[in-house]
């Protein structure tokens, strides 16, 4: 039986927990992915914007330099530029105004160096560029910014070349060289967090500046190259060392350069991990809460169910028991009745024999006969006692609910005790409300209740005391009968245990069952007994009975 409730409890808890946790899991999963996406976005946005800003810096830097070279090519005539002194003066002014110019050269239409200012004048004396690619590019485009290369100088540099054509058809090329230390300064200004890296590459994937992690300038970059447009883009990737990275690229306008920045996702992952842990803790805590609430609630529910089942079972047993007793009672009554008839015959026959013996003047062995007949009569008397006891038992078993007037019942009960009250000079005061409706009770049991309470009241008062019996309505559906005495009263202890079986204040004289039995009777009738008492100043016992009983009737 116990197992059955355990299994039921487990099942209900499981269903409740599942019903609560499944939506929680769905919610947590949605949260998880939303958070992840948000985190990724939050990590990418500033990264992209700094890359975009730096790209603009590069574009501005190169555009300034290119414009300067173009300006020089157009405002000075060929002869001025071919003059060593003038070119030197121009170059010094350029260096002063714009950082990064390494040299300046004038190249004629055929690719030969005409004039040169810079540190490599010896190496470059009369060099012919006509076969070099940049020369062809500048001839066709008029303006050209090269990739980084070492060339004749053996250090990474960028060439800016501008071709100028006069209205009369003469043209020349002014070429300046930029060293890449300026690039490094721009990149350093990005102020990237440690572990990150930023560098320029060519569209072919050749490093243009030194990288902290991915090689020196002019080496190929060991990363997958995302398609680089004008706008900065961010993508997730894994580098050659297996690190998870974010890669941002932005193409620099009018050049082959691509700005590339690499950021480890570790920091971002750590933040995400913390948030994820928070999420997990909240989830686990919620699960625990749900489980405990479900388990406790269901546990209490099941306990109550178990209790009410037990109560019902007890009530069923009690009913069965009382029905059994009732049928035993009926059986006893039947037997007593049947036995009484032959018993009556025996009794009369023996009586007749006694009569005959008594009437005969001369009866031999009269004494012996009379003795025998006397013992027959005595035996009949014993049998009569037995059958009467059986009938008495049967009557007790037979509860009959009747509509009774409590006032009549009080008066009837009083007749049993009037003699004792008179003898002890106890005054009994009746204050009965005659307008009370009838109550549904068993006559014998109600009499037992009143008799018991009244006996106790009389026992409590001293000689010459007083007992007041009142009947009155208690609310709309109850009638109360109170028995007030001015006797010895009860202490706290007695009052607390008064209805417990075997509790008695009368020592050996009492069984301690009276009050517990009548309490049971009143409870079964749907009523209650209230006790008010003060030690030394008396007690009031109030029997409360319902006017209408729930159901058809109580059977004991």
């Amino acid at each position, binding site marked *: 039986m116990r197992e059955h409730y355990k299994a039921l409890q487990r099942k209900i808890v499981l269903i409740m927990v599942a019903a609560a946790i499944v939506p929680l899991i769905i919610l947590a999963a949605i949260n998880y992915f939303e958070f992840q996406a948000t985190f990724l976005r939050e990590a990418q946005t500033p990264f992209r914007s700094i890359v975009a800003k730096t790209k603009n810096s590069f574009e501005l830097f190169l555009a300034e330099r290119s414009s300067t070279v173009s300006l020089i090519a157009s405002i000075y005539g060929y002869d001025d530029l071919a003059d060593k002194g003038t070119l030197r003066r121009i170059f010094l002014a350029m260096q002063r105004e714009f950082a990064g110019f390494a040299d300046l050269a004038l190249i004629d239409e055929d690719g030969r160096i005409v004039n040169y200012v810079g540190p490599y004048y010896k190496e470059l004396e009369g060099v012919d560029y006509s076969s070099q690619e940049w020369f062809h590019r500048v001839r066709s485009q008029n303006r050209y910014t090269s990739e980084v290369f070492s060339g004749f100088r053996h250090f990474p540099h960028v060439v800016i070349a501008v071709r100028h054509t006069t209205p009369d058809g003469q043209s020349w090329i002014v070429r300046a060289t930029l060293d890449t230390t300026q690039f490094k300064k721009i990149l350093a200004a990005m102020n990237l967090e440690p572990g990150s890296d930023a560098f320029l590459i060519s569209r072919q994937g050749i490093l243009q500046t030194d990288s902290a992690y991915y090689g020196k300038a002019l080496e190929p970059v060991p990363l997958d190259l995302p398609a680089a447009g004008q706008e900065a883009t961010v993508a997730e990737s894994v580098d050659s060392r297996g690190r998870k990275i974010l890669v941002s690229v932005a193409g620099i306008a009018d050049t082959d350069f691509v700005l590339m920045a690499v950021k480890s996702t570790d920091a971002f992952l750590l933040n995400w991990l913390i948030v994820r842990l928070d999420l997990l803790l909240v989830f686990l805590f919620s699960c625990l809460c749900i489980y405990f609430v479900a388990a406790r609630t269901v546990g209490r529910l099941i306990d109550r169910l178990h209790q009410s089942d037990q109560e019902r079972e007890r009530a069923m047993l009690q009913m069965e028991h009382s029905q059994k007793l009732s049928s035993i009672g009926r059986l006893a009554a039947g037997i007593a009745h049947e036995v009484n008839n032959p018993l*009556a015959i025996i009794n*009369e026959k023996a009586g*007749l024999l006694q009569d005959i013996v008594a009437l005969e003047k001369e009866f031999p062995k009269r004494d012996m006969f009379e003795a025998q007949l006397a013992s027959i009569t005595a035996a009949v008397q014993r049998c009569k006692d037995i059958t009467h006891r059986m009938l008495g038992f049967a009557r007790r078993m037979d509860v009959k609910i009747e509509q009774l007037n409590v006032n009549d019942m009080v008066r009837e009960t009083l007749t049993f005790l009037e003699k004792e009250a008179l003898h002890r000079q106890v005054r009994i005061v009746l204050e009965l409300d005659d307008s009370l409706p009838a109550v549904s009770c068993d006559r014998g049991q109600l009499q037992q209740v009143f008799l018991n309470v009244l006996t106790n009241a009389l026992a409590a008062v001293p000689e010459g005391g007083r007992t007041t019996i009142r009947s009155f309505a208690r609310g709309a559906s109850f009638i109360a009968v109170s028995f007030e005495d001015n006797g010895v009263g009860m202490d706290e202890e007695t009052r607390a245990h008064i209805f417990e079986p075997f509790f008695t204040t009368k020592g050996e004289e009492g069984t301690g069952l009276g009050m517990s039995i009548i309490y049971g009777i009143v409870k079964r009738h749907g009523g209650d007994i209230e006790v008010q008492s003060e030690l030394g100043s008396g007690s009031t016992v109030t029997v409360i009975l319902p006017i209408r009983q729930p159901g058809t009737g109580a059977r004991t």
Partner: protein
Amino acid sequence: MTSDNTISTVLIVDDEVEFAFTLAQRLGLRGYAASVAHDGESALRSIAEARPDMVLLDVMLPGMHGIEVLRRIRELDQDLPVILLTGQAGARDGIEGMKRGARGYLAKPVDLGELLEFFHGPNREA
């Protein structure tokens, strides 16, 4: 109700033949003229023919119940003293009978002394 000290005829109504006749015999020995009826119908006939001074009426009779017999007797005669004999001491039948005008009731087996007391006095219970 008359206090009657001059009872001489008694009708015993009981289906237990042996009981009825033996009791009749014992009353006979004490100077009463006792007759016997074994059911309600014959008892009523007998009362109608010759009114006895006293009726001893068993409650558990075959056919008509003792209480019903008592009711019919009261229809015929308001004053005829009736003593009920019951199988159950102090039982509802006895009380019911008292309400319907029986002088008293006695539980079987009957003590003759108790019964004779009824012959001399008015209403009282055993």
